[in-house]
């Protein structure tokens, strides 16, 4: 019985970590190009709405999922216009995007509240799902969770092994040197912003198409902000983002289960756990590090060429 509860808890950690994971990966992708996008929350909720609406209208959740990515990329492009073309401050632009995105999604989405749309249901992976322990934790979820497993290694490969990935990182680390070497830094930053927005949109769609199958205002519930924090927690590494997202999701799931099991601890104190433990784990894992892992030019705009 106890092991069953632990397995259920870990499976819940994976599922509640997944929307945060998508968004965190998106923000890593953007920040690697040297752009700080604090609009994750706004991009996510627009993605959640787009995914839901398209899935509803076409009857096809897969289309909805991709539409969420596209709308996410488009929404993030607003940040690109303001920061890359107009040299706007990245912090304000991102915060403004959160305000705008949340407002737009709530305004446009009112008509869809309380409606039903097709979504993703759990599908066990043959063979893998039968492995004791591992199977129920990782391989009895919906398809989107499996998709989320593929992104971190793919992103790692992209950054480490491909020309585009190296160019993107160069745009975030040494834009001046990269320009001198003939790279189009601005184009790489566009790639970072729009590509990152794509993943954030997917994170939103996970909430409206898989985690729940409904659309409402405030569906993202602040998860975009957690993603911003987890990027730093992950030292800008896609692999560590998985750890961060599952840790956060897991502790959230744990405190709910502690309540369900009848603990006498105050729920206010229990709810502090995910936030406090994230900081504690970060401190433990970063206190020996000598260098900062942040892209060297993060948050700094590139002056237009004369």
């Amino acid at each position, binding site marked *: 019985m106890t092991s069953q509860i632990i397995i259920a808890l870990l499976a819940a950690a994976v599922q509640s970590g997944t929307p945060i994971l998508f968004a965190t990966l998106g923000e890593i992708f953007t920040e690697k190009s040297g752009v700080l996008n604090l609009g994750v929350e706004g991009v996510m909720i627009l993605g959640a709405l787009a995914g839901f609406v398209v899935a509803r209208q076409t009857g096809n959740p897969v289309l909805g999922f991709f539409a969420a990515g596209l709308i996410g990329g488009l929404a993030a492009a607003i940040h690109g216009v303001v920061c890359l073309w107009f*040299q706007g401050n990245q912090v304000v632009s991102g915060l403004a995007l959160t305000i705008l995105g949340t407002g737009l999604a709530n305004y446009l989405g*009112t008509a869809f509240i309380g409606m039903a749309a097709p979504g993703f249901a759990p599908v066990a992976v043959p063979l893998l799902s039968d492995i004791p322990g591992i199977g129920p934790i990782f391989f009895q979820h919906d398809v989107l969770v499996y998709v989320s497993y593929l992104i971190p290694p793919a992103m790692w490969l992209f950054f480490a092994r491909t020309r585009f990935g190296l160019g993107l990182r160069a745009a975030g680390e040494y834009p001046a040197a990269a320009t001198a070497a003939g790279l189009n830094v601005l184009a790489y930053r566009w790639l970072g912003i729009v590509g990152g927005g794509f993943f954030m949109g997917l994170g939103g769609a996970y909430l409206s198409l898989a985690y729940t199958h409904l659309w409402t205002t405030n569906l993202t519930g602040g998860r975009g902000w957690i993603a911003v924090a987890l990027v*730093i927690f992950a030292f800008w590494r896609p692999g560590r983002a998985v750890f961060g997202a599952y840790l956060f999701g897991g502790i959230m799931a744990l405190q709910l289960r502690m309540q369900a099991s009848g603990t006498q601890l*105050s729920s206010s104190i229990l709810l502090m756990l995910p936030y406090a433990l994230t900081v504690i784990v970060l*401190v433990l894992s970063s206190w020996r590090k000598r260098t900062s892992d942040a892209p060297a030019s993060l948050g700094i705009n590139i002056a237009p060429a004369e």
Partner: protein
Amino acid sequence: MFPMRIAKRQEPLGFGGSCFVLLTALGLSLLLSAILLSLGGTSPVRGISVLLQGAFGSRWALEDSVLKAIPIFLCSLGVAVAFRLKIWNIGAEGQFALGAIGATWIALSFPGWPKYLLLPAMIGMAMTCGGLWGLIPALLRQHLKTNEIIVTLMMNYIAILFLDYLVYGVWKDPTSFGFPMTPMFSEQAIVGKIGGTSINWGLAHCVILGLLIWLFFRFTRIGFEIKASGDNVRAALYAGLPYDRLVILVMVMSGALAGWAGFLEASATVNRLQPSIMVGYGYTAIVVAWLARLHPLSIGIAAILLAGLRVGVESLQLDLQVPAAFGGIIEGLILLTVLAGGLFTHYRIAWGVGK
């Protein structure tokens, strides 16, 4: 492509030009909002005029906007101090909560003290608690190299939950029928209103603190060191400036100012501590600080503008039944266009193909 390019100005855009750019940006965002309004079936002209009147169009409206701007201003003043050193304190929300908690603690413990003693004690405790909440991420950053963005953000959640814990538990008013709120503060613990207005004396606090911060950066050595270190950390370290101590100082100042805002909100506007005082002023403060380019007077004006916008949107709801979400759209649009318009301070659009 287009025969258009961006060229650097020889000199930054002058006063008249900046006004023109700002007004154009505001006009553009209002135009976009008007289009959206008319798509939603509301008369755009009426909508915009109701919005502006609701924000600044009467004595009441102006008072309301100023009143709402007070906590935003103080939080923003605080984060701006940290931003000068390029320390990314996004924890004003939590520092605000701790300030309110500290002030409440004094107000509940010594309700009988005379006003001239009680209020300063409340302010002192609010600044101490807020400052401590800012000190923790600064120390973690300095000794354990922990990034301050994530720590301040996470500490916001923790602070709000701590506030919840207190008002749902030990501080709950026995006569509140079990609702989460502390007892009402005694008369001496309340910051009063100015004359016949609805604005409290917190406005005076804002003016004095704003002035002090301005003087601090303008005339003191430490203020200069903060600015210099913020502009170029390496040069500052090379010049032997005490960077680490400055980090501690700005975070504590930052937290203390946000804490002061928390004190005012508890004492002057709500007269007690309750969870609903947390409405996100600490996050709004970040937008305001950057929009105003960290200058105290500009922060004041930007705070009133943003507060006015939020007040005006309520009239838009009340008079024209426009959903609350529309306020976010207008606010986002205004911020983005004004931000983009900033380009023209240092650049201009040149027609014709460049060299």
